């Protein structure tokens, strides 16, 4: 696994704000989950209550641990590791947007065109626009290969777009 928060912030203080994101999400989710099972049969509650209460307890322990470190002045609640290295924030957000775009547009563009567009744009984004020809070639080969494998061979019912419809009409 690739946990590496230890070497991301070499400032005087340990930034532990990021460490709280997941526990807070888990805490909120657990409360929401409890809310949804208030009124269900006991059998459907029992193991979730058991696990959920332990989880909240563990989160409490972590909060105490972090609280102590902050109080002792050895740590603060800045986001730290999660946004480091900062130079990559725009790229990462752009990649996230492209990924979201992939999922949204695949319904209209279909498998092949979406994969091609996504691969091209993402590779150009990460490579700062270098090797355009190579990028388009790779994206073309992979998206067409994917079309042959997933749609033609494995008959996956991926949303059909203009390309798939054209191919279907041709063959």
């Amino acid at each position, binding site marked *: *696994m690739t*946990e590496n928060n230890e070497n991301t912030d070499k400032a005087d203080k340990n930034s532990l704000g990021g460490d709280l994101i997941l526990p807070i999400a*888990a805490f909120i989710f657990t409360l929401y989950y409890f809310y949804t099972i208030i009124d269900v049969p006991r059998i*459907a509650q029992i193991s979730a209550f058991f*696990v*959920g209460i332990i989880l909240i307890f563990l989160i409490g322990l972590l909060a105490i641990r972090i609280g102590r470190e902050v109080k002792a002045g050895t740590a603060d609640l800045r986001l730290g590791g999660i946004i480091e290295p900062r130079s990559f924030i725009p790229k990462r957000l752009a990649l996230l947007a492209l990924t979201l775009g992939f999922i949204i547009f695949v319904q209209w563009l279909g498998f092949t065109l979406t994969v091609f567009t996504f691969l091209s744009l993402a590779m150009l984004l990460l490579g700062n626009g270098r090797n355009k020809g190579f990028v388009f070639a790779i994206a073309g080969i992979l998206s067409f290969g*994917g079309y042959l494998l997933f749609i033609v061979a494995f008959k996956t019912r991926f949303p059909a777009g203009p390309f798939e419809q054209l191919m279907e009409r041709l063959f």
Partner: protein
Amino acid sequence: MEFDPALFIDLFARTFTFWWVILPAIFLGLIVGAIPGFSAANTIIILLPMTLAMDPEVGLIFMVALYASSRMGAGIPAILVNIPGTAGAAATPLDGYPMTKQGRGQQALAISFVSSVFGGLLATIITLLAMPWLSQVAFYLHSVEMIVIMLFGISLIATIAARDTLKGLIAGFFGLMIGYIGADVVYETPRGTFGFLELYDKVPLIPALVGLFAVSEAFFVIEGESILSKRGKEAMQKAGWAATIEGVKIALSKWWHIIWTSMIGLVIGVVPGAGAAIAAFVAYQQSRAFSKTPELYGTGHVEGLIAPESANNGVTSGTLVPLLVIGIPGGATAAIMLVVLQYHGVTMGPDLFMESPELAYGPFAAMAVTYFIMIFTILPLARYMSRITVVSTIYMSPIIISFTLVGAFVPRQYMFDMYLALVFGVIGYVARKTGYHTAAILIGVILGPLLETYFLRALKMSEGDIMVIFSKDLANVLWVGLVISLCIPYAMQRWRAWKAAA
């Protein structure tokens, strides 16, 4: 079901003459095993018209070969790019991927291949010899016993994040809570579904798997040039055939480890519905518990790679046992084999061994021969497969994202599942960046619902008496075993400290 050497020799010799079926099946299996969302089961369905047209024996050999090799194929992306192709390979990246990052991808593949092949081969042979006894396992491991077996696997979350146990536990329990999303198995009351009908049947596994591992990885690695560390890249560029040979040697030197972890897989595989994921996690947990160097697990430790790989291949022949003996398939792929066999008028059950032993034992012979052929065909490929790790992240990340999103879509063909993969990708990314163990979350997501299923079933059977979990002798033995295996690493640590001091 007596053992008759002449029958077996004849059977093996005969199966070898079908190498022309086995070979293409092996390569197809490797490919579908390596793509998340695909697996032997759905490939066999797609190819069913072809399989049915084949002679029953040929069809069966084809399916078995495909099944065995897909198991191995799932380990390849797990080791090289941290993407387990199926749930059964979810424990493989724990030590396989760190090895890759150190530039030992080729070696890791070789180790994985050798432990898969020998684990699978051994389990197959044991199955052949011990079929009458093995077939009884399913009659003893009922819900209560399965609860404890699940806990063996789940206890991994306590030890997996050795660097920060508290964070590891939070990740694991968060995973369990996520795994509890969906309708309960008794009254079908939806819980924690955010109102999505798509989550009624629990969190679908592949979107969670590719999200937590692959998508988060793709967002993570763009900081570097390739997924390898600098030193890893140098090691990778120098690596020749020697690395494969080295891997084989290392794996063979751990022969005992391969044997007993594959036996864990075999026994768990015999229980209908249990499967490769739980076997792999339990084997990994046991391997770590009895290791002299538990602290090395998760850093690219050879035993940590051997255990899940030989265990999940041990499962493969195990799932065929209940199919052949009581006509109940042990897993999805076995279920489809049943269809093909019944199509040809073969009725499963104890009579089969008397009436047509060549068909009853045939699948195991085919599996053994497949594993044997794989040694010579797959091993040499490790060197070339591992090259993928030097591909620049500029190209690697987008490819991983697009093709794993496709994989998330494939099993249920809901757009929803692609969004879900992205959500899990974000969770995985945050977890990685802030020192929470994504594998711990995944163990919870995979094993949580299984644990709850067996637990609620037992609870319903006992009409709500929670003490049911201690109501069976065998289960109580397993409880003791669980406690022992949890205490052993701690005890051994103390023992060594005491010895060092003395």
